[in-house]
């Protein structure tokens, strides 16, 4: 290992250590990748020095041009065809976090959309209590206490539901945006885990989950018009519509990836 004069690790050595920690596969093939990477980086650093850079800057520039360890390891691991249990768990966790973020943002969007629908179709259609269902007295007392302008229990419940729907869902949306920002930040600073999941797996899971949710929510909306399961059926339809849009978005992304002329060669570059 080559260390700089002040005792700190050189940029190339630090990079190779990071890369090695992210690679997984047969030892001989991992060793070959690291050996080729080291020869490449030192050749590039030599060329940079010959062009007038100081040694430290030459190494840093060589490392930068090589690509982040996460990107290179992801490409290499695909060619190695292997993934460690830890890599599988972290990649699955990353995907789950992405789906949660999308789901929370979708919930956030559904609040204002439900409110907009209520302005058009009536608050009773979207937020109203089930017809013919008597609410517990304690619930009515609470609603009437917090919705002073309501004329009765049913209207107070509807107002309260409208307020909660908007407020809580927008809060979920803000949480989703914060989670999205966190994931983007981790990606930007190279802390994204190595993507060892099959190509298009995340889009397939996302499209399927949200597509199923859209169908279930739509059926619940239809059922609600018959048996009055919950507050106004308009909410079910809004949720179903949002889920459908998210599902289509995921499947469109999947189609774009599958139709990409880059097919196998590009996989390594797009992770």
């Amino acid at each position, binding site marked *: 290992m080559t260390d700089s004069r002040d005792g700190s690790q050189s940029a190339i050595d630090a990079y190779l250590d990071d*890369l090695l920690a992210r690679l997984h596969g047969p030892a001989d*093939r991992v060793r*070959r*990748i690291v*050996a*080729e*990477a*080291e*020869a*490449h980086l*030192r*050749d*590039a650093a030599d060329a940079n020095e010959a062009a007038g850079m100081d040694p430290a800057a030459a190494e840093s520039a060589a490392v930068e*041009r*090589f*690509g*982040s360890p996460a*990107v*290179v390891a992801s*490409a*290499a691991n*695909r*060619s190695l065809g292997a993934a460690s249990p830890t890599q599988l768990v972290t990649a699955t966790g990353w995907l789950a976090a992405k789906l949660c973020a999308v789901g929370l943002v979708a919930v956030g969007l559904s609040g204002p959309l439900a409110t907009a629908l209520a302005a058009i179709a009536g608050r009773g259609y979207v937020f109203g209590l089930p017809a013919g269902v008597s609410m517990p007295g304690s619930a009515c007392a609470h609603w009437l206490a917090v919705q002073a302008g309501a004329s009765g229990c049913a209207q107070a419940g509807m107002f309260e539901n409208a307020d909660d729907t908007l407020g809580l869902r927008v809060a979920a949306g803000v949480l989703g945006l914060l989670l999205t920002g966190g994931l983007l930040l981790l990606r930007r600073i190279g802390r994204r885990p190595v993507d060892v999941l099959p190509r298009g797996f995340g889009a397939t899971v996302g499209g399927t989950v949200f597509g199923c949710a859209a169908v279930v929510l739509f059926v619940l909306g239809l059922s609600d018009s018959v048996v009055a399961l919950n507050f106004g059926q308009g909410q079910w339809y809004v949720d179903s519509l949002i889920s459908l849009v998210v599902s289509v978005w995921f499947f469109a992304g999947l189609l774009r990836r599958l139709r*990409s*002329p*880059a*097919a*196998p*060669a*590009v996989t*390594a*570059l*797009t992770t």
Partner: protein
Amino acid sequence: MATDRIKGHLDLLLLSVVQARPAHGYEVITALRERSGGEFDLPEGTVYPLLHRLEADGLLASSWDDSGKRRRRVYRLTAPGLRALADERSSWRRYATSVEMVLGGAS
């Protein structure tokens, strides 16, 4: 943008670079960048897995070269690689000609 566009054609480009003469990874990537006038500027480390795949497909062969300042893996084109390059090159030229005909017809 140019880098995005080449992603589907990297096999052709890499085989073409190695056809000129056997080369190690750094030379291949440098040649790719220089011969494209700097347009094709990829994260260099991601090219190695592609070279490995081309080797696994039998289109390239490689061996260690210990003769220089440091040990390097040198890649060379195989006979199947030469045939694949000819096919890909022909296919690309037909495609490029077709695109040019459409673009020219639109002007």
